[in-house]
């Protein structure tokens, strides 16, 4: 019977299937960080259980870690306790950990792929909703809660109900200045924050196939913002090329066997998806959010919408509340919005290609006096590579701050936060109220829009320069 890619990976990982019960699914890789793991390790200890497969488990510190003065002890005692707890747990249970200061430390979803631990056809989980990032390799990857973290630590499996499948076809050639981030923001605006609930999304079509691995990761990363636990892209030559020479990529005969298997990982031509949607790449434009959920977005050339014109009562109420929170008036052109802070980083857009794209825009220019710009590489490895390419100098000459790796200003857990009423153009993934700091106002953008905005001080694309 013909199958979708998601169904193929699912079938290959069924440990046990019984009528009326969820399938028991084997997990190939478990990524750990300090926020969602302490209670899980505690649970193991209380029950006298071990980590079943330490060789399929890896941890890093990212959410709480500062991006300045990383050689000093973490100043916030509660953050420090959480990081120390991870260190103790990893030592006690024998889990590989990359701590702050280590060359492999960084955001968990940047670290997995760069080590070559993320590979096609795998099942990958992490107590973090942006685990969907790894779907860019044709892996079934999704975020889990702490109870599930404990379950995977103890058994290397999860009982799961088979998700439905949705194909998202993006065909055509992207116009200049339009990036993977704009594609996914447009998709979320189209299907809504709940549109993907219960589904695995498979992104397909010529515009997706033309993307680099970094771009594919940006798209899959934000599947959760459309409500889907996982998003997938079928592996191809771009994927295989990226995998080559990564530290944990298969070697010798294993490489050949892996390529043979990976080449089968695509949806069969006549496979049936439960839902299918279509977008034309030619019609896409630089995209920006104006509200407080990621579906409240519009092309940069548009104006702030008027809630009175929204017919759905719930949506109208949500739009009214969002405009009040964001301090915006209906009808205001988005390009006239002044921002205070530019954040370039996160598991969405903190990879080397994102830094290169932004550096190209700001090279030889000076930032607007009215803004501050934080450039935060997704991992220590990305930071090192950027420095080898001289990107740090470009950003510093421009007037930006060059920081150490971590989740940073994507979420208000570490010292990098917005103040009350402060407005950002951010390459991260969530514009929720208070997400970047209590009272902070977030506009989600691509690295190109972030860079152009830093030059002009108002929401802009490179075409406006």
């Amino acid at each position, binding site marked *: 019977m013909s199958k979708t890619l998601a169904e193929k990976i699912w079938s290959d990982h069924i440990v046990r299937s019984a009528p009326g019960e969820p399938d028991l699914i084997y997990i190939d890789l478990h990524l750990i960080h300090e926020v969602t793991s302490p209670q899980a390790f*505690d649970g193991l200890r209380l029950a006298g259980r071990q980590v079943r497969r330490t060789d399929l488990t890896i941890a890093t510190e990212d959410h709480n870690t500062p991006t300045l003065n990383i050689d000093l002890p973490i100043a916030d005692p509660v953050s420090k*306790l959480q990081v120390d707890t991870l260190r103790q747990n990893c030592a006690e249970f024998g889990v590989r950990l990359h701590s702050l200061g280590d060359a492999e430390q960084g955001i968990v979803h940047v670290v997995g792929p760069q080590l070559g631990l993320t590979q096609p056809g795998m099942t990958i989980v992490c107590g973090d909703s942006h685990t969907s990032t790894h779907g860019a390799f044709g892996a079934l990857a999704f975020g889990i809660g702490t109870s599930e973290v404990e379950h995977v630590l103890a058994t290397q499996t999860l009982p799961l109900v088979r998700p439905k499948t949705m194909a998202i076809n993006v065909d055509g050639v992207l116009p200049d200045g339009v990036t993977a981030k704009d594609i996914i923001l447009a998709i979320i605006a189209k299907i809504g924050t709940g549109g993907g609930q219960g589904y695995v999304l498979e992104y397909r079509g010529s515009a997706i196939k033309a993307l680099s691995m970094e771009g594919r990761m940006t798209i899959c990363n934000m599947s959760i913002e459309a409500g889907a636990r996982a998003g997938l892209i079928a592996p191809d030559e771009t994927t295989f090329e990226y995998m080559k020479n990564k530290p944990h990529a298969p070697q010798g005969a294993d490489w050949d066997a892996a390529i043979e298997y990976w080449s089968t990982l695509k949806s069969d031509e006549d496979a049936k998806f439960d839902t299918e949607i279509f977008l034309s790449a030619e019609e896409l434009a630089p995209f920006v959010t104006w509200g407080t959920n990621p579906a409240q977005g519009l092309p940069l050339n548009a104006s702030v919408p008027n809630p009175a014109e929204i017919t759905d009562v*719930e949506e109208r109420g949500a739009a009214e509340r969002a405009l009040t929170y964001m301090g915006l008036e209906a009808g205001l052109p988005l390009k006239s919005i002044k921002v205070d802070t530019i954040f370039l980083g996160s598991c969405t857009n903190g990879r080397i290609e994102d830094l290169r794209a932004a550096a190209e825009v700001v090279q030889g220019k000076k930032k607007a006096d009215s803004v501050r710009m934080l450039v935060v590489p997704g991992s220590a490895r990305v930071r090192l590579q950027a420095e080898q390419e001289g990107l740090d100098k470009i950003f510093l000459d421009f007037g930006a701050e060059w920081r150490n790796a971590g989740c940073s200003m994507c979420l208000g857990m570490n010292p990098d936060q917005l103040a009350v009423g402060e407005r950002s153009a951010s390459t991260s993934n969530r514009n929720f109220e208070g997400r970047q700091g209590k009272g902070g106002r977030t506009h989600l953008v691509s690295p190109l829009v972030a860079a152009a905005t830093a030059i002009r001080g108002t929401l802009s694309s490179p075409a406006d320069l």
Partner: protein
Amino acid sequence: MEKFISHTGTAIPLRRSNVDTDQIIPAVYLKRVKKSGFEDGLFAAWRNDPEFVLNQPQYKSATVLVAGADFGTGSSREHAVWALQNYGFKAVISSRFADIFRSNSQKGGLLTVVLPQVSVERIWDAIETDSTTPVTVDLEAKNVRAGGEIYPFEIDDYTRWRLMEGLDDIGLTLKNIDSVTAFEGHRPSYKPKTLPVRS
């Protein structure tokens, strides 16, 4: 996990859609390493507003939360479930829940009930008219009873059985651990391992 058969209490109307887990509990409250004490962080930003429904005295002792569509979107933090439970909630009713939040709630024994939006609206009307209206969430009978009306809901038999028995998933899986070992015997050698470390 505590067994959930049926619960009767008063309910609180949260007339907002897209209540993401950053609103249920902001990141700054996630730093604790135990499962208790998260009630302080529940809806922390919204609770600064004296008009916010949780601050209204008539809803102080409510144990059922009746929320707008797409409750629990965003971050996978199970702290959102713990915060609701630590505060005293036993069940949440909405027309749609985010997948990860729903899964987390079912692990921890917080019952999440999906009702059509029209039913949610009627319960809102009932508990706004009289905040003392008892609301019964009956998992055994698979219905919600409020203001003289009965609202049936669907839940898969397996999850229902697990919640009614208060069973823990890990214990259930460990009964089948031999099938896990058997599966591991056939995993291809090209699948990556984190140990030993390669660089």
